[in-house]
């Protein structure tokens, strides 16, 4: 397969890969924003003392973590219509990705919040701040910095997971490679180009992570004590 590797055909399909790349980027972006929302809500529920809110959040997070995304995707895709909800494929895809990644983000955010030292919380309490003020002014700004690297790690996972959307006929990056493979019978060309495109996204996100850490390094954190 390699000796006849046809760069010419890859170039011919480049516009298609370009479209796929763009689709993957925006699908991932929207899904990630959704996942953040899901994650924050779940995390807030999980941090409550009362079982009433905590238990459903825990069950949800476990269920998502213990089953493959594929299963969740089908669950939505075939399940929603039975409830009479018919949504366009890409909406179902985004929904599935957001609900899936949200569970992981909830855990990441929770770990970030719990990493803030007890003394910080007490300093807030002692100066008469309410729970919400403490969260908003003291804990979340600090937790945010701690969570940026793992958040971007999850973003990388999400970008690769979005490949599954090709299963429910959403045109994205993986789809472009499959077309090249099945129209022209050039699987090596198709898959290697796809991999290269994902690698570009990966290094982009990694660079972003590095950039954000560097940016955080500019604003000193962590007392000397």
């Amino acid at each position, binding site marked *: 397969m390699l000796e006849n590797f046809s760069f010419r055909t890859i170039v011919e399909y480049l516009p298609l890969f370009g479209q796929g790349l763009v689709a993957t980027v925006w699908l991932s972006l929207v899904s990630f924003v959704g996942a953040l929302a899901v994650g924050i809500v779940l995390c807030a529920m999980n941090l409550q003392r009362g079982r009433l809110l905590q238990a459903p959040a825990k069950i949800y997070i476990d269920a998502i973590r213990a089953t493959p995304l594929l299963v969740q995707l089908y669950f939505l895709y075939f399940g929603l219509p039975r409830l009479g909800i018919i949504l366009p494929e890409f909406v179902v895809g985004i929904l599935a990705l957001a609900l899936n990644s949200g569970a992981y983000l909830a855990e990441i955010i929770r770990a970030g919040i719990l990493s803030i030292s007890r003394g910080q919380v007490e300093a807030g*309490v*002692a100066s008469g701040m309410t729970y919400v003020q403490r969260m908003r002014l003291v804990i979340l700004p*600090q937790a945010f910095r701690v969570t940026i690297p793992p958040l971007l790690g999850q973003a990388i996972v999400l970008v690769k997971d979005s490949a599954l959307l090709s299963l429910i006929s959403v045109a994205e990056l993986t789809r472009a490679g499959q077309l090249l493979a099945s129209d022209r019978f050039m699987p090596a060309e198709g898959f290697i180009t796809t991999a290269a495109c994902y690698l570009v996204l990966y290094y982009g996100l990694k660079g972003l992570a590095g950039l954000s850490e560097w940016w955080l390094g500019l604003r000193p*954190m962590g007392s*000397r004590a």
Partner: protein
Amino acid sequence: MIEFRGVNKWFGPLHVLKDITLSVEPREVVVVCGPSGSGKSTLIRCINGLEATQDGDLVVDDKRVGDPATNMTLLRTEIGFVFQQFNLYPHKTALENVTLAPTHVRKTPRAEAEKAGRELLAKVGLADKFNAYPSELSGGQQQRVAIARCLGMRPKIMLFDEPTSALDPEMISEVLDVMIAVAEEGMTMMVVTHEMGFARRVAQRVVFMDQGAIVESGTPEEFFSAPRTDRSRAFLSKILRH
């Protein structure tokens, strides 16, 4: 101002505060000392409700701590608390650390809070450090910001939990100087510390704790020159020897 009446507290099976009775008058400065683990921190943390008591009465500024009818958040604004580890907000500058609670809790207008904050920082000797982040300050400087942060809320009471024991020896005096100044302005203070020079200079009373109980209490002169119990004698000999 602060009144413990038969207060008891347990951490699980551990009886950390045993039948504490103690009252602190307005403008009084009380130093609390005693061996590690004797319950000093727990004692002062109860005052602003960082720890809950399980038995007895604790009345602060005429309000009962732990009573559901007491608005603890409000009471806490009247009580400044300085921690051993400073606990400055690392993501805020010195000035922001001082103005955060006044603007958000007291709802002081920002400009006014900043003006007051600048004055306070100048007072603790940090006029040139308004915009420094905690990580850019030495331990002694951080602790002085922490004191300014408490003063910014114009509290009626200030509590200190070993404010100098995380500091390098040469920085201790700069913090003690600020504390002395605050005491001399007439603040009601409870200070957990082993700095006996400070106790001698400004305390009206020294309270010695051991194993959760107040073992001895008296003026600094009495306490240092003629400790009444073996335990306080042994303790003093250890901390004063070197």
